[in-house]
């Protein structure tokens, strides 16, 4: 697992994980659509689990892996409900102008 | 910093074995014919609009959306590297449960894992099981990571040549 570079040793898994976390943070800030933000959040979570594993906390890593799809599904259901609500409210906007903004 | 040339020869052989295994098993069980889950249809239609082949697009979408024989080959090599031949049988059980969680009947993943375990056991006298993990990552990089339109055309050509569409 260790790679010899000029007498010192460099591990690969923490390096990849820190790269994923930093790039994911910048991507969450820069993208503006909400679906792109969720994809970048997945990219961040993969790096986070790799960083937890590289410090040998295996139980925390397994529990995080089980809980992560549940939170993603709840977030996607919320965003889909918001889209339906916005479309249905635009249809009523001609009759009830006081509800819109 | 010396490079051993036997490592690259073993890596190339294991890449070829893994690529042949999962493409043949997935094509035989009808992944390019129809989208199994709802998300695979979106990926296939988008790749067709970019200039690719629609059956190859369905193949790549089915790999993303449920653990098929590609995930089975990776899990079989990992568990054979850690536990021996009994680990491959445990990996078959885990892949079956994962397939059923993702709304798939599970024929392709289970048989792909079992055939990969038998192939690794037959070849393990002169290629260590460590090289199959790297070979599987190389094989999935040539399909999902390099050039999507060309990969979909190659997969559609293979499926049409075998008569499975």
């Amino acid at each position: 697992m260790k790679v010899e570079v000029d007498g010192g040793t460099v591990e690969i898994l923490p390096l990849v994980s820190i790269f994923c976390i930093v790039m994911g943070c910048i991507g969450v800030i820069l993208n503006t659509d909400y679906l792109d933000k969720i994809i970048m959040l997945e990219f961040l979570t993969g790096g986070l689990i790799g960083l937890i594993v590289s410090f040998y906390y295996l139980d925390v890593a397994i529990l995080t892996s089980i809980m992560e799809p549940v939170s993603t599904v709840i977030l996607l259901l919320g965003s889909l409900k918001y889209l339906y609500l916005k479309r249905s409210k635009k249809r009523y906007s001609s009759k009830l102008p006081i509800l819109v903004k | 910093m010396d490079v051993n040339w036997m490592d690259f020869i073993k890596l190339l052989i294991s890449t070829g074995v893994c690529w042949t295994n999962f493409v043949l098993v997935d094509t035989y069980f009808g992944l390019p014919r129809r989208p199994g889950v709802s998300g695979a249809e979106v990926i296939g239609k988008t790749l067709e609009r970019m200039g690719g082949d629609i059956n190859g697009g369905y193949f790549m979408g089915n790999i993303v959306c449920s653990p098929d024989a590609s995930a089975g080959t990776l899990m079989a090599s990992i568990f054979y590297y850690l536990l021996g031949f009994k680990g491959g049988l445990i990996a078959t059980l885990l892949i079956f449960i994962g397939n059923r969680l993702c709304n798939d009947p599970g024929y392709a993943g289970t048989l792909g894992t079992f055939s990969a375990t038998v192939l690794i056991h037959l070849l393990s006298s002169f290629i260590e099981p460590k090289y199959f993990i790297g070979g599987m990552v190389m094989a999935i990089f040539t399909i999902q990571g390099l050039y999507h339109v060309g990969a979909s055309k190659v997969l559609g050509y293979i499926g049409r040549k075998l008569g499975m569409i």
Partner: protein
Amino acid sequence: MVGGKLEYLYYILSVVTSLVVGLVIGLPVKVDINSFKGNLFFPTVFIALGLAAVTDFLFTLNLVFSILVGVVSSLFSKYVDVIFPGVSYGC
């Protein structure tokens, strides 16, 4: 092949037991790829091999455990569409 000579026979005994109990219970013989229901061959053999490997890794594998694994895997294959049902996307 797997390990000692005797463990190899226990795996064979577990598969044969699951097939015999499956015939008695009345699982269908015909293999259908597109269906979610289990038949005599598909989930039964692989579930039996996997459970036998888990039992061998955690505890020990003797005659009683081997027959018990066969019965449990056959019953699991009978009710596999109740435990893991397929989802139809209603929109």
